[in-house]
């Protein structure tokens, strides 16, 4: 089986879907001739032509708006927003059109669009190239939001997103495009080769949306994470010495609440980890859902480890991004509470 990093796995998913379905189209800023700033679409224009994989003007609202029109018309567009920080001009289109078209048309029209976009910190991109705005999407009824943490899931989830008839935001953790890391932000990336999740089949397969993965089994506490933070969580759990269960959510909408509840009911303790800012972050929703469902099983208050409530800093990045130390400390504390 071939070994792929995240970029190759996502490229392979797009390749598979372009091959299988003539209604699938890729477009975005610099994705055609140039192959994308992170090279995710490299070679696809040469293989499928300019009609299937093409460059757009720098116009995010127009890109997403046109994608919705194409989707309503019956195509299956996959649009790239170069960095998720750039998606805000298109937020109107995502909220008011993509997410709501089906409901307000009484089921007449909907837009099966996939919006791919790199997100997250760890590459010293500063404010406008580092953020994690998943809570902005999770709050929008009618959108799905998916965040993979490894190459195998990335390919299988992206194929599911493209085949899904609802609008989906597919957030790609750019910190781990080229390799996983040991969770320590100041150390070099490892290579995906050698990681079991880098064994990625060439052909078509899917990882279902709304199904979390148990990345590590444990009995004393539950850690919830997604994307880059799954890797931080693994390191933090090792450092803490706590026998924690790690759940990789994979998609935050739809959310696999059953897997979460089963784990917390078993462990009685929970730490939620995300790199987005804490206040009104997705961790707040997770915390509320768990409290509603597992109140009598909880042995300690649910803890959240998240980005600080500031704009994304350039200088303090290594401190801003939650690292294994902060997770380990939170785990130790929930065990003492």
């Amino acid at each position, binding site marked *: 089986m071939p070994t792929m990093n995240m970029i190759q796995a996502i490229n392979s998913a797009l390749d598979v879907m372009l091959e299988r379905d003539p209604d699938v189209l890729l477009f975005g800023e610099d994705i055609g001739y140039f192959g994308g700033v992170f090279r995710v679409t490299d070679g696809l224009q040469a293989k499928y032509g300019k009609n299937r994989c093409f460059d757009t*003007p720098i116009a995010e609202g127009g890109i997403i708006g*046109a994608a919705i029109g194409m989707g309503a018309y019956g*195509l299956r567009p996959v649009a790239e927003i170069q960095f998720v920080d750039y998606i805000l001009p298109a937020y109107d289109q995502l909220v008011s059109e993509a997410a709501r*078209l089906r409901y307000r048309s009484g089921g007449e*029209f*909907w837009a099966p669009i996939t919006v791919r976009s790199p997100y997250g910190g760890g590459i010293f991109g500063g404010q406008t190239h580092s953020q994690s705005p998943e809570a902005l999407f999770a709050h929008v009824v*009618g959108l799905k939001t998916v965040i993979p943490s490894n190459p195998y899931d990335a390919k299988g989830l992206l194929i599911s997103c493209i085949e899904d008839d*609802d609008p989906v935001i597919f957030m790609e953790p750019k910190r781990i495009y080229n390799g996983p890391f040991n969770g320590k932000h100041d150390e070099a990336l490892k290579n995906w080769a050698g990681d079991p999740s880098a064994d990625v089949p060439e052909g078509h397969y899917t990882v279902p949306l709304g199904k979390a993965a148990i990345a590590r089994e444990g009995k004393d506490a539950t850690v919830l994470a997604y994307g880059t933070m799954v890797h931080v969580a693994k390191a933090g759990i090792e450092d803490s010495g706590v026998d924690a269960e790690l759940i990789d959510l994979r998609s935050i909408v739809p959310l696999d609440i059953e897997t979460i509840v089963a784990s917390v009911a078993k462990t009685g303790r929970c730490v939620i980890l995300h790199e987005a800012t804490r206040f009104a972050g997705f961790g707040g929703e997770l915390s509320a859902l768990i409290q509603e469902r597992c109140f009598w099983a909880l042995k300690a208050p649910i803890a959240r480890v998240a980005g600080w409530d500031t704009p994304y800093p350039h200088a303090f990045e290594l401190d801003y991004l939650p690292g294994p130390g902060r997770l380990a400390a939170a785990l130790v504390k929930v065990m003492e509470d």
Partner: protein
Amino acid sequence: MAKPASSRSRKPAAGTAAPAPADHNRERPADPKPYQASKEELLEFYKQMLLIRRFEERAGQLYGLGLIGGFCHLYIGQEAVAVGIQSALTPGKDSVITGYRDHGHMLAYGIDPKVIMAELTGREAGISRGKGGSMHMFSVEHKFYGGHGIVGAQVSLGTGLAFGHKYSEDGGVCVAYFGDGAANQGQVYESFNMAALWGLPIIYVIENNQYAMGTSVHRSSSEDRFYLRGESFRIPGIQVDGMDVLACRGATEEALAWIHAGKGPIILEMKTYRYRGHSMSDPAKYRSRDEVQTMRETSDPIEGIKKALADAGIKEDELKSIDAEIRKVVSEAADFAETSPEPVAGELYTDVLVEQY
């Protein structure tokens, strides 16, 4: 999708001598001619415009009675635009998308007045099953893609629809309507750029009724000749008398010919006028009663076509029987909308997604 026509291909051949005057440096659509309608077509235009007017008057009454809640933007005064344009399209092939003032477009498309009125009153039988309301109505059958309440957002969607026509090579054209107010939204120009770049089959119809809510075009638009708004993108535009249904139809014919010849997108600026307020809650202090009265007396599209009908030898009696027929249709629609049931509670959670969460 065929190879997109690049803007380069429209430049004059290399080696051309002195640069041509700015207005004539590329091909432009011909000046449209008023449509030569048959007697039957004239009657049909009259019928459709009258249906829109009577329907909208009735909707205004139902609003006043509290049967229609929220927002309700009437099309009275602008009837010639939708009727003239729709009559030139090929049903089932061409697609249409518009903004929030959408009742008239739907009626012009032949959609049953009952299900439109029932949508206004929020009933199960409404065309969006009561969940869309006045601004949000759709019909797959008529390739009518809504009905959009966010000013200007439909322009990008229409551009995507036009892409769909081109990609699937179905020969269809998208008509994307928006108003003079929406014409100042940024994504309109993102859309113009893409449509010209990719040679998309789309008519951008700017219904210039001269007021963006309560702000006149002169107070909101640095270039108020909207047909010129595509010039930076090499999209030609035509200004049309939007109070004259034959002029609207004639201009649409010209626009369709332009697109069918593979020349890319085109803009039609329809100069029109709405007699009523922007919505039902509009105190209309931004214009004088005299202005409205003068427009009604001198430019009314329905009075205008009556003259053409008289010239064609249609008797007053025949028009009267059409009037009576339309009043009946509208009354039935209103009765239906008042008496048909509201959606059941379970409908709240349907169609949020194609699948369930």
